[in-house]
């Protein structure tokens, strides 16, 4: 699309980057290697690019009303347990899933009515549902859970901790997540290492690697610091003083860390703003009133700019909150799901527009699933949940994993319809990492607990 402009753009970009780097100067210890930027830009435009996008649903998505039992017996069981929370069966007919491999025992599942756009992509074979996935340390049976005879994830049912376990295999205070550790594997091959892990939401431990640093940007782009960009209160000397004060290395670790962030911000902003401004606008519509859609639109634009950003492998993080619906589940959950479905569908369409649909995979994640039982107006904190994996390379139209029974005190229930996961986040992460190109021997560097499982790849992707 913008290939015709590439040569001219690369030269312009190089010059502008060189000047941006000069500004950041010695205070930018992160790898922005000028020669490597040029090489990686070439590599990026030559193909071989891949990106992974984590869509985190903060608060614990109610999986029970996201993927809903549809065959008459299962729906009746669901209705009996959920009572007023249950979605009526007739509202689910349009989003009934017909997976390419039928579910066992004649079971049928439907997406929430608001997820119609995802149903279309499922039918086209580019979206699948991973059933009952959650945090584990190793394969765990209900008997083992009850006897506490195997290691379990720390602080089950606690929001902040389970967010952290999902993202980083450890409770609050963990310092590296699997998105970041995935980024670590590609720091060398990405000419511009800083753009290996790009976060368009707030800071998330998912995106911190052992070496990889998450680059945070806003849905509107990178923010320029006005005070150093032109004379400050009429004084160029003041602008220069500001730049020096906020970027100089410091001896106190907190002061130094602060200035490292500022220096990164300044250096990256020039590159990102330049790269984005030279792109044609996306024609795929994104709902400007949907914050998740706006984040994903920026991810799509960054992917569009991959060549000038000098990257061939990237991990992105976006998020949407509000899922902790102990109350008002019926009033609020459909709207949230609608936002997720629309944002994901628009994003997938944008990757088609960019010609990279086969090279970009997005997936949902959340603190935990919720209870199947009702507390009258909502549901409580659970464990295993259902999640989506979406992209042109996905062997979609399928439902992976094990479909849980619709019951309280059933074979997967640790209480009140909280699901003991039958597929672990480690499995999911390892499968995604393999698709990104991480070798089997290096998988434990990304997902250390994967060594606790015999099956490692979930077969989410075509070839």
């Amino acid at each position, binding site marked *: 699309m913008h290939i015709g402009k590439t040569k001219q753009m690369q030269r312009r970009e190089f010059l502008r980057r060189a000047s941006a780097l000069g500004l950041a100067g010695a205070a930018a210890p992160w790898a922005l290697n000028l020669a490597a930027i040029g090489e990686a830009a070439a590599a990026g435009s030559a193909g071989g690019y891949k990106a992974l996008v984590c869509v985190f649903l*903060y608060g614990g998505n109610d999986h029970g009303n996201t993927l809903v039992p549809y065959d008459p017996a299962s729906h009746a069981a669901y209705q009996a347990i959920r*009572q007023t929370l249950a979605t009526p069966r007739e509202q689910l007919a349009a989003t009934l899933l017909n997976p390419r491999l039928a579910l066992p025992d004649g079971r049928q599942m439907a997406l929430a009515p608001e997820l119609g756009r995802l149903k279309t992509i499922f039918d086209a074979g580019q979206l699948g549902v991973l059933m009952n996935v959650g945090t584990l340390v190793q394969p765990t049976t209900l008997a083992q859970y009850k006897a506490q005879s195997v290691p379990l994830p720390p*602080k089950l049912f*606690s*929001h902040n901790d389970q967010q952290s376990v999902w993202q980083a295999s450890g409770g*609050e*205070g963990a*310092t*590296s997540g699997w998105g*970041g550790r995935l980024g670590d594997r590609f720091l060398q091959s990405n000419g511009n290492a800083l753009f290996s892990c790009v976060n368009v939401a*707030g*800071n998330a431990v998912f995106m911190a690697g052992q*070496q990889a*640093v998450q680059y*945070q*940007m806003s849905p509107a782009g990178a*923010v*320029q*610091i*006005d*005070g150093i960009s032109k004379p*400050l*209160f*009429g*004084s160029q*000397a*003041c602008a220069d*003083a*500001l730049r*020096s*004060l*906020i970027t100089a290395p*410091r001896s*106190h*670790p*907190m002061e*130094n*860390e*602060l200035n*490292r*962030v*500022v220096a*990164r*911000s300044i250096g*990256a*902003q020039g590159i990102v703003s330049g790269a984005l401004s030279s792109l044609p606008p996306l024609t795929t519509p994104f709902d400007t009133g949907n914050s998740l859609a706006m984040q994903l639109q920026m991810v799509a634009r960054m992917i569009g700019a991959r060549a000038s950003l000098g990257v061939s492998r990237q991990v992105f993080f976006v998020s949407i*909150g509000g899922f*902790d619906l*102990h*109350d008002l589940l019926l009033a609020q959950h459909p709207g949230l799901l609608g936002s997720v479905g629309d944002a994901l569908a628009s994003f997938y369409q944008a990757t088609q527009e960019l010609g990279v649909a086969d090279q970009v995979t997005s997936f949902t994640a959340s603190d935990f699933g919720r*209870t199947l*039982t*009702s*507390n*009258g*107006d*909502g549901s*409580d904190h659970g464990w295993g949940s259902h999640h989506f994996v979406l992209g042109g390379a996905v062997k979609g139209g399928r439902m992976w994993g094990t479909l849980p029974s619709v019951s*309280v005190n059933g074979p997967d229930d640790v*209480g009140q319809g909280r699901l003991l996961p039958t597929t672990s986040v480690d499995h999911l992460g390892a499968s995604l990492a393999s698709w990104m190109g991480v070798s089997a021997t290096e998988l434990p560097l990304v997902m250390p607990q994967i060594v606790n499982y015999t099956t490692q790849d979930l077969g989410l992707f075509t070839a």
Partner: protein
Amino acid sequence: MNAASASPSASALFLPPSGAPTEAEASRFLAQAGFAATPVDIVRVQTLGMAGWLDEQFDAPRSLSHFDWLISKGFDKAKFRNGFAGVDATLWRKFIGSPDALRQRVVLALSEIFVISMAGLPVAWRGFAVAAYVDMLETKAFGSFRGLLEGVTLSCGMGVYLNMRGNQKGDPRTGRLPDENYAREVMQLFTIGLQQLGPDGRPRTDDTGPLDSYDQGDVSELAKVFTGWNFDGASATSPEFMRRPMTHSANRFAVGPKRALHVAIAATADGPTALGIALDTLADHPNVGPFIGRQLIQRLVCSDPSPAYVRRVAEVFADNGRGERGDLRAVLRAILLDPEAREPAPGPATGKLREPMLRFIQWARTVGLKSPNELWNVGSLADPAKRLGQSPLRSPSVFNFFRPGYVPPNTDLGKLGVTAPEFQLCNETSVAGYLNFMQGVINNGIGELKPDYTADLGLANDASALVERYALLLAANALSVHSKDVITDAVATIAARSDAGRRNRIRAATLLVMATPEYLIQQ
């Protein structure tokens, strides 16, 4: 006195008593115990001493309540029922303008521990729910922890935010169970935390690792205790009920025996009695002192207090010297007068990144920002790209803007295991957003709140004196000589021949001081 005497005195006529804090020491104390240090405040601390200043502030009169202010401005009209109109304004009114600085500072800190947020209050009269909640924190801030806990628990705002309001007994016929949200979070966040703690706040462990404070069974049991509560006379036409504690309905209260942790609650205990037993049990738990004490230290003084500091504060929490537990005045005194607060040993973990909203409030108080028509139209500062990424009572969730255990990944702090909660808000976007926002407000204020630099115009003729003054007031004189020189040289390039030039000198000096890492990391 000391190095601080080299700076222009806050009040040239004032001679502090011998042994009094220096101006820099007073300024530093005021940034912890209040928001800002005006020359008048500095003299007051020097006159009374720090302990005396605290005593005066504990008894300072309260300004008009948030609730009454909203009514006085007509926000109780029905058309405002489903919004937060006026709430940001009244919050800024007090945080910027109310003279009881210690109380306001502690209220803001408590609002970050006992979190409710405008990001999640789906109820009619939601603005008044927030106003009443903050008023309640003001009322309880200097009382007992047990009283504060009950105020939080029975407030309509928390009732809506964490769903205790409307929580009802289970129904064996339908399988409905009590809502667990408040039961879980009151333990995890407001009282005891997830792990058993020693008296110095460090987790207790055994062969298997850290010991949990409670399990899912404890949550389910406590959820039963917290059934039956609802608004005291909800009304579509008047928000008045929002400032009354919730009331109990016996017919929605779970039947049968219950327990709060290890304490049995008889089936005969009615709802309020059962709630009282549960809150007593939680407030008496040995975790509370170190758990809450450490978080209050983090909000007021430093990000990674030593275990010894936490222990000293927890000891005062356990006993204020008169045999009383949970005396918050005594706890606040212990936090703010502790040797580690007053004279911290230099080290990698010393200090804290100032919270973005505290930087703005400090600046506003330092320049004496006024709202001439009482509009206080600052609005929400929550947008990280254009504003501060943080605004009072606008946390994204009950887990606050940042977690007390946050360790910034991939940093020297991470390698050292230093907790630095505020860094959770610090990223490439927010650092730029902060500088741009402050440049704008320093230049021309925000809303109808315009800074008046007239009083400093004379000082602005002397760039060095100007920088010294703002370094003292804003940064407690913590700027390095080098940073001051850089700023002074730059400010001096602005011609001071006109008032316009002198104003620009003041603006530049202020922004540059507030951009230095020595300012932003409050030590």
